[in-house]
């Protein structure tokens, strides 16, 4: 039961990545396998196209790279809460301004989307045609960008004053609200994996991994 529940959770988290990656990986596989330039060793034919061994290898390499990249982003996004990350960075000496910028930037994204929708609504209500093809849409960009940027700037101005009025610029390290548990296993993994990555890099650069495809 627990295994199924965990799997279901994982699937829910990874599904968006999967949806984006599947067509990408499929097209990488097809194009490389069948159309790899200068490939000699034919495997089989599909109509006028010939699958080659070199192509298949290149396809697997490229696809693995993409998946590895997306998976690392996914694991980070799914396993890390931004407020905890920023807290932790702050405890490790990141300045209050830098950490504020990170968390505020992340918090702003959904609000910007909402604001953009409101602005577009107001302009459409004044007869701006956004339903009439690409030209109409492009013409609609200026009336959107203006208030979006200016509004964001006024917001920044107001927020700066409000934050200053809450002693944001006081000197010293801000009070830490909670210590985040950092188990021996986590520490070991963090160091171990970092070392492994460095080691692999050294080996790859030094040409000791040439036996890998």
């Amino acid at each position: 039961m627990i295994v199924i529940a965990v799997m279901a959770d994982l699937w829910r988290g990874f599904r968006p990545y999967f949806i984006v990656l599947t067509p990408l990986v499929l097209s990488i596989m097809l194009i490389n396998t069948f159309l790899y330039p200068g490939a000699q060793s034919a495997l089989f034919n599909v109509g006028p196209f010939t699958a080659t061994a070199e192509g298949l290898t290149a396809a697997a390499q490229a696809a693995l790279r993409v998946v590895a990249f997306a998976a690392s982003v996914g694991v980070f996004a799914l396993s890390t809460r931004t407020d905890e990350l920023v807290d932790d960075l702050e405890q490790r000496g990141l300045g209050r301004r830098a950490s504020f910028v990170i968390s505020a930037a992340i918090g702003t994204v959904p609000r910007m989307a909402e604001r953009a929708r409101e602005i577009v609504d107001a302009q459409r209500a004044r007869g701006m045609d956004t339903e009439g093809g690409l030209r109409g849409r492009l013409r609609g960009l200026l009336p959107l960008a203006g208030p979006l940027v200016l509004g964001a700037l006024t917001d920044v101005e107001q927020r700066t004053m409000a934050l200053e009025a809450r002693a944001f610029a006081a000197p010293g390290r801000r009070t830490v609200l909670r210590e985040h548990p950092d188990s021996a296993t986590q520490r070991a993994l963090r160091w171990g994996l970092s070392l492994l990555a460095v080691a692999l890099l050294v080996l790859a650069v030094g040409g000791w991994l040439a036996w890998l495809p």
Partner: protein
Amino acid sequence: MSLRLEGVGYRYAGSATDALIDVDLAIEPGEVVGVCGPNAGGKSTLCLVAGGLAPLTIGGQLRGRVSIDGSATAGAKQYEVAQRVGILFQEPQAQLSDSVPTVWEEVAFGPRNLSLPLDEVVARTWGALEALDIADLCERDPGRLSGGQAQLVALASVLALQPAYLVLDEPTSQLDPEGTRLVAEALARAAAVTGAGILVVEHKTDLLARLCARLAIVEAGRIVKQGTAVTMLGLPELDELGVSPPETVRLRRAVEATGGHWDPSWT
């Protein structure tokens, strides 16, 4: 002991005209002083100057003297002034830090900035939430509050710095009647619980009539009238000054203008 403006003038950076001219105003601890007047007359500037933001944060040129309990704010740091004078603006969401997931952490933001010990941060945060009777909001996402609730959270965030004075720039202008009622009650509570001296700018003169003992009318950068709230809100020239009289005053005038009799017990 007072928040005091003496002969204060102010000019925004890059501006050719004075936004405030020769302003004298004092707020004693525990008293609520109202400010009203036409738009663009200098009310918001007065708030920025009283809260130290002008010129400490936004620059510009200050003349005269602004002092808190005897010590001038000139040359002080904004974070020092912030612990003496709290300031609240019109737009509820624009003054939240937008950087934390809960109301509790939003209110703790100020005390944390002061690097206070953790138990002090916790005590001040609960203290501010309880002073406004909004401790039940503590787990909520600050971005998903109603306007009135967000304004109360913003006020609690300021109170957590335990200022002796509060400056409020049209705190209810963006709120619906329910939000206005919440904020007005919170202000009365804050005045009673914290003993802070309060300067509040408002168009809603009915609200000022309930909250304030004294009132100043600001127009074209100057305080043109100052006195008890009852006298000020009964001035016959209030309309010309761009201030809408409280409903009771307005109705009394309408009745008397048609030769009718106004019974004082009707107010």
